[in-house]
C-alpha cells in the first residue's frame, strides 16, 4: 500500500515535470516561426515598392486588426453600442478602412493578469496597451513587439509628434529601449495630481477664522471645525493608502515640509535618493502623529478605503481635505447636488518652520505603453488609429467633440481603442486661462480647442444660472470649480506651473532587478512603519530603525542600482 502510494506520487511528479518542461519548449518553438514570418514580410517590404507613407491613408480593402480593451466598469453606451461596436469602430472602418475586432476585454485591474495569460499562451492581439512596464520591457527584450522607430517618423501625424514631444521627450524616452522606439507611451507626466487644500465654505465662514497662510493655520481651522459641532467627527481626511491616494493621503503635508514619499529625488550631490526614507519624512509623520493624538484624524484611517473617506466628506463629518484636482468632480459634486455646499480651494501651504522651497510631487508615471505584436502585417495601424483619434478629439480644426468626446449623456472618448487620446500636454491648464478670460471679458474669441468650448459652455451656464437666481446644475458647478479663475483646481495648477513648483520622480516606469524582487516587501514595510508611528504604536524615533530595516531588506542595493542607471544616463 505504502509503496504504491509512493510510486503513484513519484509518477505524478515525474509527469508534471515533463509537462512543465514541454510547456516552455512548446512556447519557444511557437515563437520561432513567428519571427521568421516577420523577417519574410520585412524583406518583402524592402524588395517591393514601398508605398508612400500617408498618416491618414485609407486601407482598401480594409484591414482586420485584433485588439484588447481595458474596459471601464462604469462606461455607459448608447443603445446597441459596445466596445465592439462603437462610434470609434464604425468611423475607423468607414474613414480609414480599419476593421477593429475586439479579441478580449476585461475590467481595469484584471487587465494585467489577462495580458500575462495572453503573453504566456502566445495569443497576443495585434495592437494592445500594456499596463505594466515590466511586461513592456520583457516583450521588447523577447522581440515580440514591433520596433516603431521608422514607422513613427513616416506615419505619425504632425499633431501626434507635437503632443508626444511636449514634455521635452520625457515620456518618449521611457518607450525607447536600446535606441528603438518600442511603443507609444500611454500617459505623460500627470501634473494635475499635485495636492491642493479644499476647505468647506459654510463651516469656514461660521468659524470666523482668517484665510490660512501656513499649514498650521489649516490645522487650526480643522480644530475649529471639529470643536464647533460633535457631528463633525474629524478635522482632516486620511485613508489607508497613506502615501499615494489622490483623495486623502499625507502627500500634501509631506510636500509642505519637503518630503517626497515614494519618489526618487536628486539630492544636493546629484545622486538619486528615495523620498520615503529621508529625514524630512520623519517630520511629516510626526505632524500626523500629533494630529492623531489630538483626534483630528480618524483613528481607523488605516482600514478606510478612499470611497469610505469620500463618504465622510459628503456626510458632513469632515470639512478639510488635502487632495488632488478631481475632488470637485467627485465626491464634492454629490454634496453640492444634495445640499448646495460650496468649497474653497487653496494652493498647498508650507509649514511655518519649513525653510526650503515648496515643491509639489506629481504622481510617478507608470510607463504604460501602446504596442504592436511582432508578425502583424500592418504595424503602422497603431499610429494611424492614434492620428485619427487626435484628429477627431484634439485637433482644433477638425475635432467633432460631440460625436467622439462626449455629449450630454455619454462619454465616447473612454471607448476609443487607444485611450487616453493625446492632446496638448497641459490642455486643462490652458483651458483654465482661456475660459477665465472669455468669461471675464465676455469674449468667446479666447475659446479655441474643443475642450475649451465644452467647459466654457458649462461655466457660462453656471453664471447664467447664478445671475438669474437659479441653482446651477452639478455639472456646471464642477466645470466652474475646475476651470474658472485662479482659485479653481486648474487655476491653482497654473499657479504651481508658473512658479515652477513641480517635482517628479526621476525614476519612471523602470525597475532595477532588485526592485522587481523587493518592491512589494519594501512598500509594505513603508506603509506599516508609517501607520505604526502615526497611531503611536511605535514612537517617532522608530523612524531611524525603519530606515535601517529598509536599507537592509534591499533598499541599499536598489539605491546603488538606481544611481548606476542614473549616472549612465547623465
Amino acid at each position, binding site marked *: 500500500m505504502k509503496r504504491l502510494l509512493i510510486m503513484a506520487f513519484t509518477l505524478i511528479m515525474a509527469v508534471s515535470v515533463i509537462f512543465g518542461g514541454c510547456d516552455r519548449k512548446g512556447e519557444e518553438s511557437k515563437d520561432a516561426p513567428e519571427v521568421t514570418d516577420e523577417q519574410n514580410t520585412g524583406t518583402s517590404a524592402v524588395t517591393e515598392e514601398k508605398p508612400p507613407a500617408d498618416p491618414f491613408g485609407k486601407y482598401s480593402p480594409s484591414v482586420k486588426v485584433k485588439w484588447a480593451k481595458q474596459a*471601464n466598469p*462604469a462606461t455607459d453606451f448608447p443603445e446597441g453600442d459596445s466596445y465592439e461596436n462603437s462610434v470609434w469602430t464604425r468611423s475607423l472602418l468607414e474613414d480609414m478602412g480599419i476593421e477593429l475586432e475586439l479579441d*478580449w476585454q476585461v475590467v481595469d485591474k484584471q487587465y494585467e493578469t489577462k495580458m500575462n495569460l495572453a503573453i*504566456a*499562451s502566445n495569443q497576443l492581439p495585434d495592437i494592445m496597451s500594456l499596463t505594466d512596464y515590466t511586461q513592456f520591457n520583457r516583450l521588447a527584450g523577447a522581440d515580440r513587439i514591433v520596433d516603431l522607430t521608422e514607422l513613427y517618423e513616416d506615419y505619425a501625424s504632425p499633431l501626434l509628434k507635437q503632443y508626444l514631444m511636449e514634455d521635452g521627450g520625457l515620456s518618449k524616452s521611457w518607450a525607447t529601449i536600446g535606441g528603438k522606439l518600442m511603443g507609444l507611451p500611454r500617459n505623460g507626466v*500627470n501634473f494635475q495630481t499635485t495636492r491642493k487644500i479644499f476647505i468647506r465654505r459654510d463651516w469656514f465662514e461660521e468659524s470666523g477664522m482668517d484665510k490660512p497662510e501656513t499649514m498650521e493655520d489649516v490645522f487650526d481651522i480643522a480644530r475649529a471645525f471639529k470643536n464647533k459641532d460633535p457631528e463633525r467627527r474629524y478635522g482632516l481626511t486620511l485613508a489607508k493608502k497613506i502615501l499615494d491616494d489622490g483623495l486623502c493621503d499625507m502627500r500634501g503635508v509631506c510636500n509642505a515640509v519637503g518630503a517626497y514619499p515614494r519618489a526618487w529625488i536628486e539630492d544636493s550631490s546629484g545622486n538619486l535618493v528615495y523620498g520615503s526614507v529621508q529625514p524630512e519624512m520623519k517630520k511629516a509623520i510626526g505632524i500626523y502623529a500629533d494630529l492623531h493624538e489630538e483626534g483630528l484624524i480618524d483613528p481607523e484611517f488605516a482600514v478606510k478605503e478612499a470611497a469610505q473617506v469620500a463618504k465622510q466628506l459628503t456626510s458632513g463629518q469632515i470639512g478639510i481635505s488635502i487632495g488632488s484636482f478631481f475632488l470637485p468632480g467627485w*465626491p464634492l459634486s454629490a454634496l453640492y447636488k444634495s445640499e448646495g455646499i460650496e468649497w474653497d480651494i487653496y494652493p498647498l501651504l508650507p509649514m511655518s518652520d519649513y525653510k526650503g522651497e515648496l515643491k509639489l510631487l506629481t504622481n510617478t508615471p507608470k510607463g504604460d505603453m501602446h504596442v504592436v505584436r511582432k508578425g502583424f502585417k500592418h504595424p503602422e495601424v497603431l499610429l494611424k488609429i492614434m492620428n485619427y483619434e487626435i484628429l477627431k478629439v484634439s485637433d482644433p480644426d477638425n475635432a467633432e467633440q460631440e460625436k467622439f468626446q462626449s455629449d450630454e449623456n455619454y462619454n465616447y472618448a473612454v471607448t476609443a481603442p487607444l485611450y*487616453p487620446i493625446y492632446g496638448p500636454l497641459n490642455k486643462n491648464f490652458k483651458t483654465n486661462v482661456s475660459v477665465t478670460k472669455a468669461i471675464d471679458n465676455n469674449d468667446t474669441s479666447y475659446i479655441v480647442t474643443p475642450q475649451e468650448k465644452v467647459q466654457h459652455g458649462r461655466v457660462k451656464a453656471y453664471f447664467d444660472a447664478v445671475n438669474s437666481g437659479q441653482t446651477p446644475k452639478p455639472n456646471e458647478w464642477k466645470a466652474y470649480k475646475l476651470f474658472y479663475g485662479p482659485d479653481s483646481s486648474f487655476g491653482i495648477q497654473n499657479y504651481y506651473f508658473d512658479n515652477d513648483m513641480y517635482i517628479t520622480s526621476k525614476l519612471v516606469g523602470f525597475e532595477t532587478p532588485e526592485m522587481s524582487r523587493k518592491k512589494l516587501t519594501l512598500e509594505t514595510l513603508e506603509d506599516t512603519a508609517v501607520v505604526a508611528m502615526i497611531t503611536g504604536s511605535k514612537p517617532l524615533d522608530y523612524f531611524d530603525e525603519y530606515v535601517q530595516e529598509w536599507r537592509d531588506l534591499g533598499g541599499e542595493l536598489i539605491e546603488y542600482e538606481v544611481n548606476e542607471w542614473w549616472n549612465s544616463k547623465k
Partner: protein
Amino acid sequence: MKNNIQDKIFDIFNYAFLISLALLCVLPFIHILAISFSSGPAATAGKVTLWPVEFNTNSYIYAFSKPEFIRAFFNSVKRVLLGVTVNMALLSITAYPLSKPVGTFFGRTFFSWFFVVTMLVSGGLIPTYLVVNWTGIRDTIWSLILPTAVNAFHLTILLNFYRQIPRELEESAFLDGAGQWTILFRLYIPLSIPALATLTIFNTVAHWNEWFHGIIYLDSMKKYPLQSYLRNVIIDVSFDTIDVNMMDILAEVTSRTFRAAQVVIATVPIICIYPFLQRYFVKGMTLGSLKG
C-alpha cells in the same frame, strides 16, 4: 438538568454568543438591502443604516431594465444548471468504482490518489489557462464548467458515503442479476440522496459565486456570468490615472443604490435554494465525513 443554574448561565451566554454571531452575518446583508431600497442622495450621504430612507424601488426597476444585467443573470443560471449537472453526473459515477475494495477494483489506490493529488497541489494559473486554451474551450461556457468538473473534496465525501452502504445490499442485488450500472443507479444513488443533495448545494453555490474564471477564460463581457459582471460594477476605481473624462464617469459610479440592488438580486436565488435542500444538508455532511 434544566434546573441547574450553571446550565442556565451557560445557555444565556451561548445564546448571546450565537445571536451576535448570526447578527454579524446578517447585518451587512440587511444594510445592503436597506440601501437598495433607499433614495440615491440619502445613500451617498451615508444616512442609511438598517432601514431604508426615502423608500423607493427605482434601482430595482433600473437593474431589470439593464440588458447587461439580465443577460449576466441568465448566463449564471445556464452555468449553474449545466455545471451542477456535469458535476453531479461525474461525481456519482466516479465515486462508485473508487468506493470498492482494492480486491474488486485493481488500481483503486492509484486512481484515488490521482484525484486526491489535485487537493494538495494545483497546476497554477498559467498552466491551467494553457490547457483551457489548447483544448479550445476558452471563451465558451465549458471553460467555466470542465476545469472544475470533478472536485476531489466532494469526491471524497461521496466516496465515503458510498462505502458505508452495506455490502450485503449490493451482493443480494448482484445475486438477483443486477449489473454494476443497475446497482449504481437503483441502489447507491437512491440511498445517497442526503450526500448528493449536500453536494448539489456545494456545487450550486460554488458555480453561482465564482467570478475569477469568468474574467480570465471569457473574452467578451457579454458571456460573463453574474458574479464576474458584478465584480466589474462594484470594484473601486484607481485614482492614479484619473483625468477629466474619467471624472465624469466617477460621478455616475456612485449610484450606490443601484449596485446594492444588483447584489441583492444576485443573492436571492441562492437563498431560495437553501430551504429546499437544507433538510438533507446536515445529515449528508456528517454521514459522509464521519462514518468514512
